[in-house]
């Protein structure tokens, strides 16, 4: 029977997955005015248990009409190709499970949004798994939009463990 009692690691500020290459440098240069999210949650959770998340999103200079916070499970299939210039890795991902944790519509002109969410990780599902090339990954995704246009997105990886014995 699934338990709803969580006795895992304490919540903490999770590290965002870095945007790649050029984007990372641009974001760094614009740090003061760029949107920024903070997610506080346990870094690990077992399937069958409750997962509680607090989040904060600083809009920067962007006008934001919608912020969503979602826990997603991803299949990641990779392909390595070798060439004279080195090895290139191509990845394809598929979201197999998505839990909406929170959704907010900030007031016009608001500088930040905050909220919290909670979800019971129901089974069947699959825990985090890293092969040499392929992977099952889980992440909290914070997305901001202006009306119907997505303007910002960040992923905060979390580890989902198998059902507690």
């Amino acid at each position: 029977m699934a338990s709803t009692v969580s006795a895992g690691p304490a919540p903490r500020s999770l590290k965002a997955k870095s945007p790649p290459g050029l984007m990372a440098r641009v974001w760094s240069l614009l740090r003061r005015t760029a949107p920024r999210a903070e997610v506080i949650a346990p870094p690990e959770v077992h399937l069958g248990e409750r997962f509680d998340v607090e989040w904060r999103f600083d809009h920067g200079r962007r006008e934001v009409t919608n912020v969503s916070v979602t826990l997603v499970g991803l299949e990641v299939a990779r392909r390595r190709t070798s060439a004279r210039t080195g090895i290139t890795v191509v990845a394809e991902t598929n979201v197999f499970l998505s839990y909406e944790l929170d959704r907010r519509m900030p007031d016009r002109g608001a500088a930040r949004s905050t909220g919290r969410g909670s979800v019971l990780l129901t089974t069947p599902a699959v825990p985090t798994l890293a092969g040499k090339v392929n992977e099952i990954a889980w992440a909290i995704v914070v997305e901001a939009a202006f009306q119907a246009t997505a303007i910002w997105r960040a992923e905060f990886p979390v580890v989902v463990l198998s059902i507690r014995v």
Partner: protein
Amino acid sequence: MNAPVIALELQLEDAVAAFDPGARVGGVARWTAPVAPRGMELRLLWTLQGKWERDLRIAETIALPDPQASERRPFFLTLPREPYTFRGTLLALEWALELVALPGEEKTSVPLVLAPGRRAIDLYHRDLRK
């Protein structure tokens, strides 16, 4: 030169091949060869088949010591608690138990399901999406 022919057979107890995580598995390994193999092994392994490439990991190797040319060897092993058997859009994870003759690596295998409820997890299933 042809390699010596070896007949390999692997049978699971009660012909059951689906298990809960951590379950105990029993069975019988049989082989018949013209001469005694140098060694015999059971290998418990999983593969994570992706759209393009495959990961393979041997979770446990059990040596069957002092093999004779023809033999019937009962075995027991305890399965790990994970990873679970699943099938998705881009990936599928499958477990197998192999009987391997050394040094030629002739082998036979039986597929296993390892998942809560003894059913492979289907990531296609629309009900998973909340």
